[in-house]
């Protein structure tokens, strides 16, 4: 039976001497989704990825990729990895780097012949394919790293901070590639600090802190449920205030600024009409979206987990 999970981990734990890097990581990443892995610095995100890739041995706990337990290199033929900080052999040219990467992943030469020019073109480095990586800029290294992670046509791709060195055009390119991968049914495990990007691209996100999953959310459900509304109003009569209280739940009221919660944003026009008809002067009536950043700060806390 085909498993529907690309990644499953159970109580994965890593200690370096006395230092606890990952406490107990348990999660499941479904095949075909873009999964965001969020957490403050030092939360154990990179260590978690390293354990899944066999770079680091877990102290305890278990994990499997496509149903195959960790520790078997063969499964990595289905996996692409873009490490953070552009960690590549700088003495190779771009094209050689992709060629070696593909060969070591066991990709047949005929396939590499098609894939290498395709990915060089896709990341915009065709003109630089014969230059050594040591001459590349940060952004170019990140682009060639992405091509290296994809040249063998993997089913699961780990991207550790894939856009940190890129300009807006490059970021857009990475986003488009991730969307393209999802359309092809591939799974992307994205480790990123750029919450706005995660919000646009990811299907689900896990919030981790101290090496533990605090919560997993579906991104498109972030703004379902109650809507917070900010109201700025003057000349609000007692009757109008009472009418407002009857229609929604008041969260706070200070001077002319009111915050209230609505079960349905469709009520807003009616509330506006009611206030105006009762002589109130409305300066602002704004529904506030919960951004991923708000949620991040709410779940992880503002201390950054340190």
């Amino acid at each position, binding site marked *: 039976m085909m498993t529907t999970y690309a990644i499953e981990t159970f109580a994965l734990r890593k200690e370096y001497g006395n230092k606890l890097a990952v406490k107990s990581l348990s999660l499941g990443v479904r095949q075909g989704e873009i999964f965001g892995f969020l957490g403050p610095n030092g939360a154990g995100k990179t260590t978690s990825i390293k354990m899944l890739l066999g770079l680091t041995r877990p102290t305890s706990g278990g994990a499997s990729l496509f149903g195959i337990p960790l520790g078997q290199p063969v499964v990595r033929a289905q996996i692409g990895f873009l490490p953070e900080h552009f960690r*590549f052999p700088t003495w190779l040219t771009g094209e050689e780097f992709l060629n070696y990467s593909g060969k070591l992943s066991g990709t047949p030469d005929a396939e590499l012949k098609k894939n290498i020019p395709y990915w060089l073109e896709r990341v915009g480095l065709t003109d630089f394919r014969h230059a050594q990586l040591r001459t590349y800029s940060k952004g170019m290294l990140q682009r060639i790293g992405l091509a290296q992670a994809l040249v063998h046509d993997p089913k699961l791709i780990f991207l550790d901070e894939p856009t940190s060195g890129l300009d807006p055009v490059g970021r857009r390119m990475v986003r488009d590639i991730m969307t393209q991968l999802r359309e092809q049914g591939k799974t992307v495990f994205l480790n990123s600090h750029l919450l706005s990007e995660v919000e646009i691209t990811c299907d689900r996100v896990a919030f981790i802190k101290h090496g533990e999953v605090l919560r997993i959310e579906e991104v498109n459900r972030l703004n379902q449920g109650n809507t917070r509304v900010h109201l700025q109003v003057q000349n609000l009569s007692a009757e109008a205030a009472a009418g407002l209280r009857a229609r929604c739940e008041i969260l706070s009221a200070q001077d002319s600024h009111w915050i209230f919660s609505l079960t349905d944003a469709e009520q807003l026009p009616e509330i506006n009409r009611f206030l105006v008809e009762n002589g109130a002067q409305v300066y602002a009536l704004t529904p506030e979206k919960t951004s991923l950043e708000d949620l991040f700060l709410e779940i992880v806390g503002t201390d950054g987990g340190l």
Partner: protein
Amino acid sequence: MAIWILAKMTIQEASRRKFIQVGAILGFSLLVLHAIGFGLIHTQIETSPSGFRSVIQKTEFFNFLTMSGFYAVNFLTMMLIALAAANSLSGEITSGSIQTLAAKPIPRRVIYFGKWLGLALIGSAYLLLMVGGMSLSVWLQTRYLPPNLLKGFLLMELNMLLVEAVAVTASTSLSTLASGALVFGLYGISFVGSWVEQISAYMNIPSGVELGVISSLLFPGEAVWRRASYLMSTNLIRMIGGPFISNSTPSPAMTVYALLFLVAVLGLGWWSFQNRDL
């Protein structure tokens, strides 16, 4: 096979980082210098009124000059390979580029032995060109070749592989600097030990000889070189001794020990790299 890809990458890296080029220029300079020096001294003696007094004297003289060249070749090869090998894995671990490599669907042993193989090929080719080049230069000038040249070459090769194996193994867990220091330190101990052994043998001090043998067990490379120089020396030099051969010559058992040492060190490095976090 993946191990060949790794070996090829290692050789390409050595070339791109100009290691091979620098080694080639140094080696070529050494060969030229030796050839010119040999020629000058040879001509001077041949043309002087006294000349070589006998064929034996001539042979001893050629042998001495060839062995002095081999001594330099042995040292240069060992130093170059130690430097390259000390950086082999530690360099990639420090820069992090090992992560890209180790995340590929290849076992760790392929990376470890692939790097080892690539460097071993570079070192072997270098040694072959140097020993071959120097022998050829001597032969062209005098039609003389030292005895047991092949055996001597193979022992020098073993010494090079021992140095490489210790450095690669150290570089799985130590920094480049520490790995280099360890190799040269070990070699230094066995070098000093070998002099203690030789002088003690000359002066008939058994405990000094034993101390020397023990130091060779810590690192048998110097002992292997001494056996090589013994085999390639003339009978007369073997009898009376000289700067490149010893009064206490390592036995064939030491060669067997060196081979076992090589396998054990390689195994230790494999185990160390297999079990470490990257």
